[in-house]
């Protein structure tokens, strides 16, 4: 079997390949207006020890974590409710489908008027965007539960709630986890975007605004790259947990 190290190695090769390709393309002079990949990486490395950036990152991290935690806490129960009660879902579906395509970016100006606390504003926008993957994946996950498994528990006299918690939830859990994983990245994207659009005292997005004001494209991209890197780490962590918890699913 492949080991963890070959996986890491291959992943590194994949990333390196992409970067080298980009560097070569830039050096070949097709896109002279972008800073070189090597420059950006150097800046990114500098940023990781830059106090100002780190405090910005901490602030973004806070709104990301708060937003994601609330998303999970709200999204899964609602998803379970709707997934388990198709009639209720049919009733609220128009509302959901109406709200879903409204860009959070468009809502920010309106949200600014409602939330006076920076963290509240940011978390609210994060939740608004990140809850959909959790919700939709939960609903679809519940639809995919084997009816025989559900009937088994029902036949033992368990009520709908017990069936939901003991069969539907575990059996849909892997798919819900995928939804959370999707939401985690969406939350990162939104945590930064809301700062970009709404500004604030600190945050990676605010750092990018500053860099933009100074015409420092290299810093803007470097901050973006670090954001992506964070997303990568978060995902690796999620996948590792999923692999452990949902071993039964791949072995089957």
């Amino acid at each position: 079997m492949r080991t963890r190290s070959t996986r890491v190695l291959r992943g590194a090769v994949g990333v390196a390949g992409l970067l080298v390709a980009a560097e070569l393309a830039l050096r070949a002079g097709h896109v002279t207006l972008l800073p070189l990949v090597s420059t950006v990486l150097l800046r990114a490395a500098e940023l990781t020890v830059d106090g100002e950036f780190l405090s910005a990152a901490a602030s973004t991290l806070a709104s990301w974590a708060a937003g994601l935690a609330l998303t999970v806490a709200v999204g899964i129960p609602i998803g379970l409710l709707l997934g388990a009660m198709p009639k209720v879902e049919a009733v609220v579906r128009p509302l959901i489908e109406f709200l879903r395509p409204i860009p959070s970016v468009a809502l920010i100006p309106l949200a600014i008027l409602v939330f006076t606390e920076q963290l509240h504003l940011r978390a609210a926008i994060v939740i608004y965007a990140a809850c959909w993957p959790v919700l939709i994946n939960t609903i679809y996950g519940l639809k995919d539960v084997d009816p025989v498994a559900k009937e088994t528990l029902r036949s033992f006299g368990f009520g709908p709630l017990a069936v939901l918690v003991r069969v539907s939830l575990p059996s849909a859990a892997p798919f819900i986890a995928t939804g959370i994983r999707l939401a985690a990245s969406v939350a990162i994207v939104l945590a930064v975007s809301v700062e970009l659009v709404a500004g604030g005292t600190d945050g990676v997005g605010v750092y990018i605004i500053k860099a933009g004001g100074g015409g420092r494209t290299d810093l803007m991209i470097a901050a973006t790259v670090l954001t992506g890197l964070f997303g990568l780490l978060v995902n690796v962590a999620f996948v590792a947990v999923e692999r452990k918890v949902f071993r039964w699913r791949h072995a089957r």
Partner: protein
Amino acid sequence: MLEIIDVTHTYGAYQALGGVKLTLAEGELVCVVGPSGCGKSTLLRCVAGLVQPTGGRILLDGVPVSQTPDNLAVVFQDYSRSLFPWMSAAANVALPLRRKGMDRASRRTAAMEALEQVGLAGAAGKYPWEMSGGMQQRVSIARALAYRPSLLLMDEPFGSVDAQTREDLEDLVLRVCAHHGMTIMLVTHDIDESVYLGDRVVVLSRSPGTVAGDLQVSLPSPRDQIATREHETFVRLRAEVGRLIRGNQLSPQET
């Protein structure tokens, strides 16, 4: 105890059950046989309250079954899908016992005991997908037996185990049934088995299923794998059931 009165069921436009009439007394073990696709599983699902009959009524202790009745256990024909892949065999068996308000330790003890009875003492920690078909089937039997239901529905419960294990399980069911006074409705394709196990054998006709025959099995209890099967009544009944299934015709006795 259980009264099935003119029950019909239609899936969409397809009629699976064509008016089944059947009564089970308390503590009775009734075997149901019939051709493949005649509606045996459907009948069991109706009794379990998992599907609503489209016609007729089902009474349990005089009360119409609208939901799943209390104190019921089912061994599904599709046993592999009825086990939860995220739980070990022991956990699968122990799960329903929560309904009985048993604490963790006694759930565990009961589960281990039931697994031992079906010959899986060593496989308690295995996950369903680490087990052979026959082992999975035995887990699902253990789960039902550990639950000690007052009504037990079994759909082809011994189809995937070898002859020896099958006999052991048959005797286990007979013992548990007698000991705890369960009422059992057991679907099987094995005519010998139906006669060996049943207090009565009910033969369903080709789809849409109706009761084509209902034979009292007057064999001495306790049954014995060798003696009973050599019993003259056994041989006669076996032939009778065979004839009923084959021909769907009533035996001379009943006309």
